[in-house]
């Protein structure tokens, strides 16, 4: 199986470069620079050093013994991306892109953010590299994630609220693309997921693939064999593609992406693109999208701001088509239950995004034999979500 996209960034029928002519020069410049630096030993060494010294890699593969005992099936391992600097997997991608942007002579980073984790990571890298930073965030998300907004400002970034459309992640992505068409020469769009026009899906996947590179080595060391399944949550899909990538050729390892079903895939209040969407073209790529019969993008919903996106990265769409990966819906209720479960049983408060994967692991582990293992990627930590979970449970708690 080949994992390299064609020159136009295709994953099966998915991917491509559906963007305004104004931006073609910028993505071509980026593609060329990335093609060069990914094989440049100085660049690779500097990124590796940043990951170790600054982000705290490798992240631990933690054997969740209490959870394993409680579920009574396969051994559960948690890949602890929540322990990275800034508290999520997002930093892996951002350090790569910021370093690349610096090599390209760019002095300004712009980014979209949903839950705020990618915005915080980008603001962090901008602070580290001495770059200017502007983060676009849906007005509704700014209210849901007020602490992260302040965190970004503390790091020196300007946060611009987006009121267009549904005022959530998709609108923040649209607005960041618009900003990029306004100002290109000194600005790099530090896209936060494995989506958008080529080369972003490939480049972001490569920067996130460190997750599965480490996890594969770690599980072989701990268990002496590969896991039965790797489970990760999927919004745009960057932590999931990073978690899957180095297991794709291990065809006995099930790859399971957990999407946000919101109030259920039989309701309109869902963001489960793979289970409810159809093939379309949006945000620079061909992939699956939640849309109506006339191609109008649907106003999706999830309790999780980071998964509240109507599309999915093109490589995931291709993995679904080929059957190599499975994509399952997880509801708000299941996610909140898993949030509380992991907090109590392991003393780990996970991000509301990541618990979509935990919720499915809770269902899957008991069905598998005890001599098998599963890896669940904990993509982020849950400090940012505590107030929202309290409100979900009817408590009047605000950030």
């Amino acid at each position, binding site marked *: 199986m080949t994992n390299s996209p064609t020159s136009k960034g295709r994953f099966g029928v998915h991917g491509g470069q559906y963007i305004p002519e104004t931006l073609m020069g910028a993505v071509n410049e980026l593609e060329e620079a990335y093609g060069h630096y990914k094989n440049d030993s100085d660049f690779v060494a500097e990124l590796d050093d940043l990951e170790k010294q600054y982000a705290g890699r490798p992240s631990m593969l933690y054997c969740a013994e209490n959870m394993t005992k409680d579920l009574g099936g396969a051994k559960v391992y948690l890949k602890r991306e929540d322990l990275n600097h800034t508290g999520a997997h997002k930093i892996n991608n951002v350090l790569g892109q910021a370093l690349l942007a610096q090599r390209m002579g760019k002095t300004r980073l712009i980014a979209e953010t949903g839950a705020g984790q990618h915005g915080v990571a980008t603001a962090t890298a901008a602070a580290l590299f001495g770059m200017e930073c502007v983060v676009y965030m849906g007005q509704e998300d700014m209210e849901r994630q007020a602490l992260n907004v302040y965190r970004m400002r503390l790091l020196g970034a300007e946060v611009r609220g987006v009121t267009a459309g549904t005022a959530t992640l998709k609108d923040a992505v649209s607005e960041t693309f618009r900003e990029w068409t306004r100002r290109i020469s000194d600005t790099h769009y530090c896209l936060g997921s494995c989506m958008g026009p080529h080369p972003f899906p490939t480049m972001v996947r490569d920067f996130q693939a460190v997750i599965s590179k480490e996890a594969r080595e770690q599980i072989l060391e701990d268990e002496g064999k590969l896991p039965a399944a790797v489970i990760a949550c999927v919004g745009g899909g960057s932590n999931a593609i990073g978690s899957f990538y180095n297991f794709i050729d291990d065809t006995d390892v099930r790859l399971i992406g957990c999407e946000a079903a919101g109030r259920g895939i039989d309701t309109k209040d869902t963001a489960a693109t793979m289970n409810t969407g159809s093939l379309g073209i949006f945000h620079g790529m061909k992939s699956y999208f939640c849309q109506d019969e006339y*191609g109008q993008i649907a106003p999706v919903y999830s309790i999780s701001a980071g998964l509240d996106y109507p599309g999915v990265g093109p490589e995931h769409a291709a993995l679904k088509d080929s059957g190599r990966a499975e994509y399952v819906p997880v509801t708000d209720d299941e996610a909140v239950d898993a949030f509380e479960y992991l907090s109590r049983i392991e003393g780990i408060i996970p991000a509301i995004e990541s618990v979509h994967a935990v919720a499915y692991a809770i269902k899957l582990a008991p069905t598998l034999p005890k001599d098998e293992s599963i890896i669940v990627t904990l993509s982020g930590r849950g400090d940012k979500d505590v107030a929202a979970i309290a409100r979900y449970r009817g408590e009047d708690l605000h950030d």
Partner: protein
Amino acid sequence: MTETTQTRQAGVRRSRIAQAFTAADGCRRKAFIPFVTIGDPSIALTEKLVPAMVEAGADLIELGVPFSDPTAEGPVIQEASNRALAAGTTTDDAFALVARLRREHGINTPMVFMTYANVLYSYGLERFAHRAAEVGLDGVILPDVPHEEKPEFDEPLAAEGIDLVSLIAPTSHERIHSIASDAKGFIYCVSSLGVTGVRKEITSDVKGMVREVRSVTDVPVAIGFGISTPEQAVQMAADSGGAIVGSAIVRMVGEHGEDSVPYVCEYVRSLAEAVHGLN
């Protein structure tokens, strides 16, 4: 080879687009191209606006088919798109409108849709192209389909004689050659960086871009993005084959709603007369 013989040789219906840029004596003439969003705030208003703009001197009409997330648009056209969608406007309504404009209103002026890739893709590219030809549409402008992705859309559209309009931008540089070499209908020259919307001044080297196009093809070039005053329209049309005005008109529709016909009419007349003064 002239455009007329080219399209005839392709064995399809002749595009009306060339006539917008051609005078009665066959010479080139400067074209004025207004834009409105279909269904903003109602289909009934668009059905009144188009004949009124033709009467006021429009040479080609650009019709926006609303899309939920128009990433190349500034706030003015984004809001128009939202109003149109809120009113329930669909792609089928847009086709039905063009059919009525041709058959019931006798509009012979070329009309093109400006919309986004997903609107065509979800409709089915061949089905869209067939319906476009059936109702008498002449072309489609897709700001999120660059030259690299053009064949997927161009092949089904060309098979029905519909021109997929190519865009060039101030960042196109050496790309202009390949874009212009297979351009059809007209070339939409994006005057400035950024999204659609009114600008105080246009500082790009528009002349240089047009010169680059001219070295490859005689397909006419019209300039859009940022034009709102007669002076800007004249300047841009003088440097090319025509001027496209969108946001300034759409803003009037936003302000006056169902009563906007006389305001738009007067404005289009002033711009069209200014541009035609160059002929």
